[in-house]
């Protein structure tokens, strides 16, 4: 069975843990503020999130105790499980605000689309690591990973959850670019996507989604409707000035001008209360986390490890970048949490599992067996 290897502990990446704790600490403090009601103390959101952290850290401990390479062969079982969950959510899940995203587990509502992001990373890493990556991939070789991405993509798009669906596409693109695509294939795919854009605009996007994209360019077109999020978020961030309004002092959040202030727009609260310097500090910590994760990727001992670590980094990075871009009024409003920062169990557990896998890869940067 498992033989304890001292090198596992030696290679344990404390930097990553410190980065996680820093970001998570800020996230929790921010959640406390965002859901604070005068005289009410810690909100139920805050308490729940603490439980999820405990659950998440427990999951990390479980995940790091097994060599990450079991995931190479567990990829399809995981994939099938996730697709089944997505189908379940779509057909039998609880309906919230006209979307079918959640599965009621009693103690919490699971959002399988969050898990699907990590599952796709594992699946693609597993797939690509078993191929020769030295010459770059052509269209024919990319067909299977495309189909693997396409199935959950369509299921999530149907919920509808444009943000998460796009995230799957972004993961695929990031992974495929990383392992290498032949120039001709790349150009062809880019042209294909460009050709599909107008079709997607007409047939796939719902009118509110189109509206969100349009209002990005001119939020004042409809300041009380679709432009409201962007305007209020920018006001919150901007009014933070250099030093912020102080913990629990954000007027945009506490007077409820800012919508979704504990989930997708959590960082607006942070920027409002801690100002430019607080925001820079947060970005520095996040950047540190990503750099440590990238270091783990570059020290991984095998292709699968590199690709898996890279996939997790890109998962974290793209979610963060899209979320912040949206908060800062650079990208259209789509449902996209800021990993480790936004409130939400499914997202947090997915992120922590991903980070657990990263730690795992870092711990096993030396070959356990052989030589």
């Amino acid at each position: 069975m498992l033989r304890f290897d001292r090198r596992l502990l030696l290679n344990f990446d404390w930097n990553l843990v410190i980065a996680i704790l820093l970001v998570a600490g800020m996230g929790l403090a921010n959640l406390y503020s965002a859901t604070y009601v005068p005289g009410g103390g810690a909100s139920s959101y805050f308490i729940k999130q603490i439980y999820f952290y405990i659950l998440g850290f427990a999951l990390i401990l479980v995940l790091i105790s097994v060599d990450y390479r079991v995931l190479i062969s567990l990829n399809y079982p995981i994939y099938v499980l996730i697709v089944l969950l997505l189908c379940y959510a779509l057909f039998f899940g609880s309906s919230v605000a006209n979307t079918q995203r959640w599965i009621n587990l009693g103690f919490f509502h699971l959002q399988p689309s969050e898990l699907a992001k990590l599952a796709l990373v594992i699946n693609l890493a597993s797939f690509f690591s078993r191929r020769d990556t030295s010459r770059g991939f052509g269209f024919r070789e990319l067909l299977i990973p495309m189909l693997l991405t396409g199935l959950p993509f369509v299921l999530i798009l149907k919920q509808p959850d444009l943000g998460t669906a796009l995230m799957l596409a972004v993961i695929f693109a990031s992974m495929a670019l990383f392992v290498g695509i032949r120039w001709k294939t790349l150009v062809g795919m880019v042209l294909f996507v460009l050709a599909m854009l107008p079709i997607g605009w007409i047939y796939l996007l719902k009118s509110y989604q189109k509206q969100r994209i349009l209002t990005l360019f001119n939020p004042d077109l409809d300041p009380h409707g679709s432009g409201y999020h962007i305007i209020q978020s920018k006001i919150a961030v901007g009014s933070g000035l250099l030093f912020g309004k102080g913990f629990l002092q954000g007027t945009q959040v506490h007077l409820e001008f800012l919508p979704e202030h504990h989930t997708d727009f959590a960082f607006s609260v942070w920027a409002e209360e801690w100002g430019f310097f607080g925001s820079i500090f947060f970005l520095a910590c996040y950047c540190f986390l990503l750099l440590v994760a990238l270091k783990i990727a570059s020290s991984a001992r095998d292709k699968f490890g590199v690709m898996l670590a890279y996939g997790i980094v890109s998962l974290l990075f793209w979610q963060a970048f899209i979320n912040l871009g949206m908060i800062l009024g650079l990208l259209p409003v789509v449902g996209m949490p800021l990993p480790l920062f936004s409130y939400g169990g499914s997202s947090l557990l997915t992120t922590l599992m991903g980070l657990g896998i990263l730690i795992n890869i870092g711990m096993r940067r030396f070959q356990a067996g052989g030589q």
Partner: protein
Amino acid sequence: MNGQEQIHHPHRTITRIHKIDEVELFLLKRRLELVTGFILVLIVFLVLRLWFLQVHKGYEFEERAKDNRGRELRVLAPRGNILDRRGRLLITNRPSFTVVWTKEDAPNPDEVIKKLARILGDDIDVLLDRIREQSDNPRYLPLRLKEDIDWKTLVYIENNHFDLPGVRIEVLPARNYLQGNLASHLLGYLGEISKEELQESRPGEYEGGDPIGKQGLEKLLEPELRGELGHTLLEVDAHGFEKKQVASQEPLPGDDVYLTIDQELQKVAEEAMIGKAGAVVASEVNTGRLLVLASSPALKLEEFVGGISQKNWREMLDNPMRPLINKAIQGQYPPASTYKIITALAALGEGAITPETDLYCGGSLRLGNRTFNCWKRGGHGTVDLNKALAESCDVYFYQVIQKINVDILARYAEGLGFGRKTGIILEHEKGGLVPTRAWKKKTYRESWQEGESLSVAIGQGFDLVTPLQVNRMIAAVANGGILYRPELIEKIIDPDGKVVKSFEAVRDGEFKGREADLEQVRKGLIAAVNSPHGTASGIKIKGVTVAGKTGTAQVVHRSQVEDFKNENGIPYKYLDHAWFTCYAPAEKPQIAVTVLIEHGRHGASAAGPVARKVLMKYFNIPEKDEPNPAESGAGD
């Protein structure tokens, strides 16, 4: 084939794959450096964006955050009081419960307005009109929908405020007319500010829906009366609920205005005029202070609180007694026999007559092929100036005017303030008309007829005067010829008690003739009241010598009404206007009183008693000591 097998069976295959892996690993890890660079670039991009929002544009967004939560509410200042000369309150303020509505706070405005209309018992269009009028106001400012709601409605709205998002009750100051409609024409009224008034006002001074003086002194003294707005800064959340009051600045009440008007005297005059159309003017002979300026019928000021209804407005417009006109300054009437004072002064001044000149009145005078009648068909016999004025002999003045001419008469009339505005502060004053030959040529392109001079000499024909002009003329006769500008404002006092403005007599001209001539006329006026045959002998007051002149102004030519069997059959609109103008005490004049009653028939019987009541009040003579003057038909 299977990755796991490769790991668990460390044989030669593993080594081979491992070697290939090494190359691929190396390539992949080199790509990671690119990835790192890419991530760093994008993060720097986010940092720059943060800089742009929080530092470069930060203050702009801070302002917008303040706009979001800060709601500056204006607190209307209590308007200044209006008091009479002795400090008795005429108009003050009272709290008025007003329904206000903040559009921004209502998720479903149409629904709210529908409900409100039902509660207030108003037509929905009325409310929508009010909203439209205030449509330029900032979204967060409450719109005033209805003033002065009653207690039951107030309670109902307060109890149902969850059904009426954005609707609140505000307590606003409203005008309280302590003396009812007293002096309504000169006081004027408030109304909701119009688009034009809003544009003319300084920014920040008014908002749509604010009350503003629309007429009379309320309008003219708007800057003094309005005071300064107070402000309350509230912090509200996104749903419009008030969280806390951040700051507030109390409003500064408006200045108090003391009028020259005497409340009691005004009241006596107005009560005497009830049921009649006309005007009463009383002034201080030696200063120009107006003690009474009444126009009847009065305006119903209470109807203007909270905006007058269409129905009430129509009613006033259609009323034949024309309540909207301030007859004391806007009503232009033939001066009738009161004008004989001017004719007498002109003739004396030009040396055409002396007081002793005797002329004969046989009841009529023929000029060319026209007959000019005296009001007394039997004639006055031999008449000198004193008798001519006392008994108001028309024929005497027909003869006098033939000795001078109408242009000379006009010069004297103008010298005593006719034909031009008196300069009273009130708006829409009329100047009247003093006819001359040149005027007629210009206006009618016809030359002057000698017969027309005869009409003008007794105040008929083209002459038009206002009661205020007549009052000023008689005051000038009494005071030795000085024309004062009629004044209404005694003083204005700011909330700190400082006198901002106080009365000053302003001379507006002077009679150029001889004092002796004035004295001769005054004698005639005294005789008119005090001699047994005087036309105004019924006006006589025990203890006070009154000097005055009656007048009966024909509205239409005599021939038009001669068909009627008796006076009672003549339609109201054809009846003569009644004048009486006087001053007292004759020995040392203090007060001049002028009364005009539209279609009141006879100066002595209709207008005289009104003036008498005012004088009795002024000289504090109890009513019961004096028997009511006989309604003598003493004629003209």
